[in-house]
Every structure is written in C-alpha cells, then in structure tokens.
C-alpha cells in the first residue's frame, strides 16, 4: 500500500492538478448548465395540465394576437372595454391597452404621435374616464395618418419575467405572461424592464399590472374584451396551434411585423400595416 505522503513531489503535484482539473470541469459544466437558465425563464411554475380551471389544458394552446393597423379607426372602444373588463384605474395614465395615432403633415420632418391619454384628447373627451381622439389636424395638410393599437406582446422571452425577483410574474404554458397578485412584492422592476411600456403600478393593490389578453376569458373559450369590442376587426385573436384560427390565418396570409425585434423578446403580438416610426 502506498502512502499518499510518500509520493514523489512531481507525482503528488500531478495528482493535485488532475483533481483540480476535475473540479474545474465540474464547475464549468455546472456553469454551462446554469447559463441558459439565467438567460430567460420560460417554464411556468405549475406543471399540471389543468390550469387555471379543471377543464382547461394549457399545454394544448399557444395563444397569439394580431393587429391590423390598416383597419383601426381609432374609436377607442377597445380601451373602454378593457378598462371596464379588467378594473383598470379610470385615469389617463394607466392602461392595459391603448391606441396610438401617427400623423405625417406635409412639410413637417417628424411624425406627430399621440394617444388617447394626450391632454388635448382628454380635453376633447371631457373626462379621463372617456376616450376620444380630438380632431386636432383638421386644418393641416395630412400626408399620411394611421392608428396603432398597443397591448402586451406576451413575449416568448419576456424581460419582465426575467427580472421579477420573486417569480410572481411568469409565462404560462399557453404563452401568456401572468402576474400572481398574491406574490408580487411591488418592486416595479418589471415595469422598468418592459421595452413596450405596457406595465403600470396599481397603487390600490400595491402590485404591477398589465394586459393578459383577458386570460379569464380566453381560458373559457371567449375572445379578449378588446377583440370583442372592436367594430372593424382590427384586433385578431386565436390559438396558433389551430392552423385555421383567425390569428393563424392572419399570420399566414400577411407579412407580419413585431415591435422591437432587436430586444430579443420575441413578441407574440403580430402587426400588419405599421410604419417605421412605430416602436
């Protein structure tokens, strides 16, 4: 039997280096395994098939949303429907969905952009609880004008989920990003991290809030409230797993865009008819 201490120095050193190499390999492998996990969280906290109701299997759906900006008339019924359906505070500064207006006036270098929360538009509606686009460009020579509805992009790699310190905000199996109101600590890191500005802080509840494509409705087979309220079919919703769903047809039959693809967030909200200024 050879005593460890009796080994010649070179052998002992070699043995030590071998062990060191082994340990390094283990640490390296662990780091490699950890790296993708840190990059973005995609797994939902619950693994069960039935959530949030017993007869709903979230592994069988992949929800998608389309916006046809060429159809939107800026009536803002979607915004009103959303505020009512989801108890969004009735003020001009907190929205789950909103509509942007882009107006290019002859001779102006920049496009004029506003939304229903613009003070001029609030003045036109007469109340923060009602929404209207003021006819502020009636005397201008308008070259081009269009509306763009905005809502949560339910990203495949959501920045909000990545930064949430508690996991209160998470991505479901069917592709919707939800917030657990009983677990959110109200740090508002997610609000800072969302590149689309879709999150707001609900002071009454002390938690972050945002559009969830009316998850309580879509899991019962209904459309989101905004889609239901849209009189022109500018908002399209459906299951991307179903090749004949409205959203699948919308994506297949059009050249669609997503907002800010450079962020790597991979949105599941697809646009048709937006212009280069839209982000």
């Amino acid at each position, binding site marked *: 039997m050879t005593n460890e201490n009796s080994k010649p120095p070179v052998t002992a050193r070699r043995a030590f280096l071998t062990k060191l190499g082994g340990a390094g390999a283990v640490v390296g492998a662990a780091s490699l395994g950890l790296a993708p996990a*840190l990059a973005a969280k995609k797994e939902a906290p619950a693994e069960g098939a039935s959530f949030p109701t017993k007869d709903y299997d979230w592994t069988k759906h992949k929800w998608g949303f389309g916006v046809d900006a060429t159809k939107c008339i800026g009536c803002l019924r979607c915004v009103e429907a959303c505020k009512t359906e989801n108890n969004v505070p009735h003020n001009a500064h907190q929205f789950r969905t*909103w509509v942007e207006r882009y107006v290019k006036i002859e001779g102006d270098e920049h496009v004029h952009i506003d*939304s229903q*929360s613009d003070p001029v538009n609030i003045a036109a509606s007469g109340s923060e609880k009602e929404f209207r686009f003021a006819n502020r460009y009636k005397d201008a020579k308008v070259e081009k004008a269009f509306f763009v509805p*905005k809502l949560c992009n339910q990203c495949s790699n959501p920045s909000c989920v990545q930064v949430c310190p*508690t*996991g209160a905000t998470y991505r479901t199996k069917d592709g919707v990003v939800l917030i657990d109101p009983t677990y959110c*600590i109200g740090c508002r890191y997610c609000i800072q991290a969302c590149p*689309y*500005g879709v999150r707001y802080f609900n002071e009454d509840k002390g938690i972050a809030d945002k559009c969830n494509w009316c998850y309580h409705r879509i899991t019962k087979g209904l459309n989101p409230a905004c889609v239901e309220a849209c009189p022109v079919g500018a908002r399209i919703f459906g299951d991307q797993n179903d090749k004949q769903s409205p959203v699948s047809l919308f994506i297949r039959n059009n050249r669609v865009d997503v907002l800010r693809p450079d962020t790597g967030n991979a949105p599941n909200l697809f646009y048709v008819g937006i212009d280069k200024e839209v982000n």
Partner: protein
Amino acid sequence: MEALINFAPYTGWVYPNETVFEWSILIAVYPYITGLVAGAFTVSSLYQVFGFERLKPVAHLALLTSFSFMVFVPLPLLIHLGHAERAFNATITPHLTSAMAMFGFFASFYVFLLLLEIWFAYRPYIVDQAQTKTGLLGRFYKVLTLGSYDVSEKTLSWDKKWIFALACIGIPGAHGLHGYVGFMYGSVKAREWWSSDLMPVIFLFSAIISGVSLLAVLYVVTCKWRKIPVDLPCLKTLAYTIWSFIMVAFVLESLEFGSMVYKGREGIDMIMQYVTGPLLVPYFVLQFAIGAVTPLLWLSYMIWRGTTGRALVIGVTVSACLVLFSVFMMRWNVVIGGQEISKTGKGLLSYQLPFFGKEGALVGILIVLAPFGLLAIINKFFPIWSEKTTHSNHV
C-alpha cells in the same frame, strides 16, 4: 386630499403608462448608501489587507461606517415596495434570473461578514468590558464574548489572521455587492440610458470614491469634535486614494457617454436633446464640473504643491464633500434620468420631487442621515478610537 399617484409632465411622444415615475428618490438613495458601504470597506481593506499603515486612524471608523450604512441599505427598498410584508418572497423563493432576487443573499452575507470582522477587531475590548462592567451592560458584553475570554498573545495573533482573511473575502464581497447594484441598471435593455456593460464598473468606482470621501469628512469632523489634531499622513493617503479612483471613475463615465453618442443608436437624438437641455445642469455642471473636475483639479494642485497643514485639511474636506455630492448626483442622474428619457425614444418626461410623503425628499434625506446616528450609538459601545483595548497593529 393628496393624489394617489403623481403624473409627470412630458414633451414629445411617451407611452401612456410612462407618465408615472415608478422609481423615485428612494431608489437613488439605495445605490448611494450601498456605494458608501463598499467605499468605506475599501479603506478598511487598504489597512487590513494591503498594509496601508497610515490609514490606521480610520481603520475602525471605516469598518463601523460600512456596517452602519449597510444596516440601512434595505430600508429605502422596503419603503418603496408595494407589499413590504412580502419582501422575503424574493429570498425564500428567489427567481434566479432576476438581478434583484440575489440582493437578500448578497446583503446578508456581507452583513454577517462585517459583523464577524468587527467582532474579531473588538474582541479584546469586549473581553475587557465583560470583566470590568457590571449590570445590564456587563451582561451585554458577556454575551458578546461568546464564552471566549482568552486574550493571550497567541489568540490575538489568530484573531488578526481571521481579520485578514475576512477582509480579503470582504473585498470581493463589498465590491461585488455594489457592482451587482450597477448590473441591476446596466442589464435593463429597455432603457438606453441604463443599458451599458460599463454600468457595474462605473457604479463600483463611484462607490469607492464616495466611501473614501465620506471617511475623509467623518475623520476630519470627528477630529475637530474630539479636539485632536488631524493626522495629516492619514488624510493625505485618503486624498491620494480619492484622487486616483476619481480619475478612473471620471474616465469610465466619459467613455460610457462617449460610446453611447458615438454608436448613435435609435433614440440618441432624444438623449442628446436631454443632456443638452434638462440634464445640462445636473449632469455636466453639478455631477461633472463641480463634483468631479473641481475636486480632481484641487487635489492635483495640492499633491503637486505638497500642500500641508490647515490648507490640506480644508482642501481635502471640501473636495470630499464635492465628491459625495457628485456621486449622489450620479445616482440621481442614472435612476431619475433614465426614466426621464422615454422608452419611445421620442419624448422626455420631467420628474417633480415632492418634499413630503413616502417617496419624498425628506424621507430620502433621513435615510442618508440615519447611519450617522447609528454610528454615534455604536461608538458608545465600541469606541472607534480606543487604542488600548483593540488590535493596535495591522496584520
């Protein structure tokens, strides 16, 4: 009745939800005091680990200042939370992809390390007090001895080895803690003003200069208080430290801004409009010109001319105050400035700081001042300048 939320005025195009500033002065104060913790610990390390014997008069002050500020680091965050009672959710079930989730662990580890190092540093004093004091105070020190009354030469030399080891671990601990605070901002890709790889390093170096400056000011003030002469070699070493690190901090921040401008990505027009407009005074005048360049030139002049005596004390103290102010402005310009530039890249918002209220200036000021009160209390139980009863020599 006070409005539940305050809406910020804006120009250009901003997303509707952006008109509420979600991170206020409290979130600017948080990295500020975290930075002071890291900076003060740097001084302690320079003495304990790197053998800067001339820093001996401030060695214990550095350690206890770092601890006093560390105690208050979580406070602004807790006050800011919508559900402070759920704060431990981030620690009990941390979400590993979140930079914020690890804060509880980093902070707890660092507090534990600091407590341990302070305990070793003050062990001879604690033992002495436990044996001489009676009543409640005596019992307090007795508990703190943890049953060890051995203050022989051999044990004390072991204590010193422990202090050295803890200080060594504390260097990456304290600086990692603050670098990570910088990462919390630098990793937010939604905000062009924050999203920079240099952000953690910038935070770190500004932290070091702020902590060293704090110690310089505290040391001079306490010397005047104790009516003893300021140890000029010690103050000069602090001045050298500020001087060398301020250059790195200044260069790094200039590089970051320069590279942002040079890359000229989407939204740069708005950033330029911002820095040459609303940010001109807070950024270029207050943070850079008054807070960084002035002390740098003043310190350079004093080093060049070999200034000493009263002129040196005044020069270093004023320079240190300016650096403290500059670093606060840096935190402010990052946290508030980042939110004043709209995510749309097409609009600017304007933050109105309330004086009263949970997110007001008063609360912010009180949080920054509170650690000084704690330091004064700690000094009653663990005298900072008690030469006889603590480890008198560095390792």
